């Protein structure tokens, strides 16, 4: 189906009318971030991004495409797995401590502009939070109501390597609706009955052959632009048997253990739970906060941290992401979005690290 550019606002309005809080790309602090939007005018129209290891620049396009860029520093995990979540509360009563689940009434989210690698990342987090022995209620509440409007990439950044991870750039499943941007509108694909239902309320027309071809060409352009590659062949075994490879020492010289890579990664899910209590000792809350395996105290046990140096922490991150994840959740923890490469302040590139780890003997 074809949706005219001018009618995208109707899609946003429809979602809002159905009680969704629409989250989409918008420009803030010199980057494209995901924030609440009400109007098409808040989208980064005519903007694009240039990305390289440790570098991101927002630049003007010479057209006014609405989705003419790739992924930025935010990911949808910010909404599904918020940086701060109150899990439970405890109150001291005459009957001792009484614990209960914290009130949690998240909005119904509609995500506009989810890319293929991000669909894959959401899928990865679903396996973590929903498909194990225990379900995380906070994630579940946000996830089960989320409406997803995907957007197919029509270009790639130098840091993208979704083709290596087989997650993109084409959106294949995991969306309610998927758009491919054309000069005057969108090719719309339906992924679910809910998507179908919403689409039926929009002023769409059937799509012309030429437009279909154009859309396909644009999607192919993204594929063609992908230059980065990670060889995943036998990667799990390779990494888990090269735990003493000299490359870990080398990367530890550069890594700041600053946590940026884990914060921007759409699949990283590590957290810590902290006590937030009143001064009188009558009321306390358990607050879950994003944490990172790069932190020294992350592995603290009485007696001291287990991962005492940056080398062991970088190794934990990379081996978890690319190897142990497969044992734990049945897929790689990396979807090839390239965020950790761009947003590493010193430009450490995991694909380069993997290549180096393949070299030499363990």
């Amino acid at each position, binding site marked *: 189906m074809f949706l005219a550019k001018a009618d995208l606002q109707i899609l946003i309005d429809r979602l809002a009318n159905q009680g969704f809080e629409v989250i989409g790309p918008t420009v*803030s602090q010199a980057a494209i971030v995901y924030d609440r939007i009400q109007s098409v005018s808040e989208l980064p129209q005519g903007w694009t991004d240039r990305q390289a290891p*440790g570098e991101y620049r927002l630049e003007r396009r010479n057209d006014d495409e609405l989705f003419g860029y790739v992924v930025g520093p935010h990911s949808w995990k910010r909404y599904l797995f918020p940086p701060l979540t109150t899990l439970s509360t405890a109150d001291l009563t005459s009957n001792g401590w009484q614990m209960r689940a914290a009130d949690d009434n998240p909005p119904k989210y509609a995500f506009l502009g989810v890319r293929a690698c991000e669909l894959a990342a959401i899928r990865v987090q679903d396996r973590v939070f929903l498909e194990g022995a225990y379900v995380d209620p906070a994630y579940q509440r946000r996830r089960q109501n989320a409406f997803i409007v995907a957007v197919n990439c029509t270009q790639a950044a130098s840091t993208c390597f979704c083709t290596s991870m087989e997650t993109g750039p084409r959106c294949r499943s995991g969306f309610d609706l998927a758009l491919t941007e054309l000069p005057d509108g969108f090719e719309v694909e339906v992924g679910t009955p809910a998507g179908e239902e919403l689409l039926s309320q929009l002023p769409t027309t059937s799509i012309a052959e030429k437009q279909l071809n154009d859309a396909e060409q644009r999607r192919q352009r993204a594929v063609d632009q992908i230059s980065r590659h990670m060889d995943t062949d036998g990667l799990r075994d390779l990494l888990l048997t090269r735990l003493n490879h000299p490359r870990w020492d080398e990367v530890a010289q550069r890594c700041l253990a600053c946590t940026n890579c884990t914060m921007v990664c759409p699949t990283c899910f590590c957290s810590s739970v902290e006590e937030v209590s009143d001064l009188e000792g009558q009321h306390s809350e358990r607050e879950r906060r994003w944490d990172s395996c790069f932190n020294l105290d992350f592995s603290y046990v009485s007696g001291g941290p287990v991962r005492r140096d940056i080398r062991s922490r970088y190794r934990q991150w990379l081996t978890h992401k690319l190897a142990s994840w497969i044992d734990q959740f049945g897929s790689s923890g990396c979807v090839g979005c390239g965020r950790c490469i761009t947003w590493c302040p010193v430009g450490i590139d995991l694909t380069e690290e993997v290549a180096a780890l393949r070299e030499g003997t363990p």
Partner: protein
Amino acid sequence: MSAKPKVGVFKFASCDGCQLSLLCAEDELLTVAGKIDIAYFLEATSHIDEGPYDIALVEGSITTPADIGHIRDIRKRSKYLITIGACATAGGIQALRNWADHDEFLRAVYARPEYIDSLATSTPIADHVPVDFELRGCPINRFQLVEVIVSLVNGRKPKTPSHSVCLDCKRRGNVCITVAQGVPCLGPVTQSGCGAICPTFDRGCYGCFGPAKQCNTGSLCQHLLAQGTLATELVPLLRNFNGYAPEFRQQSEQLVQLSTEVL
């Protein structure tokens, strides 16, 4: 600790901002004051108790010969000594004199420098007496201060997070300003505690909470130099409120050496 621990608040060379943080905890002040016996706090009360103290909060750095005796005396009279703020934990901004000609500094400010009795260095409290806990920041975070006091009152060991400013910055949803705008930022090597306010206001962190544990300042500086930041910009960035903290000090001295070698 006894029912109501005696707390003393002491000051050396400093701006008073850190002890003021306690008075700035408006919502908590009276509750906290009810749990402790404020035995010595010149800024807040005329009631003076010579101790001994269960908890001593020490602000400021050591800059005069008299300070040395005074801090030793406080240490003797205190069970648990906490240094508060960058002056006390790292020497503060006044530690810039440590790299300068002190007499020339005195002459620059005073018409009659001979009246001034001050040391050539500004040094952290821990260089002079054992310190039980350090609360970082220029100024400290008042919530951390309240948390530390309440922990001690309840017989717990105080804890403050040791991770980098970046973690808080990203939790807040900020965009990294180094990566997106090329602005040098010390966030990756600075200990959290402020809530990442500078990047939230579109400016680089200048490290006022001091070096994070195991921070890799060398790598950050090398990268910034490679990206075109000048050593002459990096040195003052490292040499400010926590400039004399070992990790920042070593790095700035290396940079100075590097740039003089180049010249």
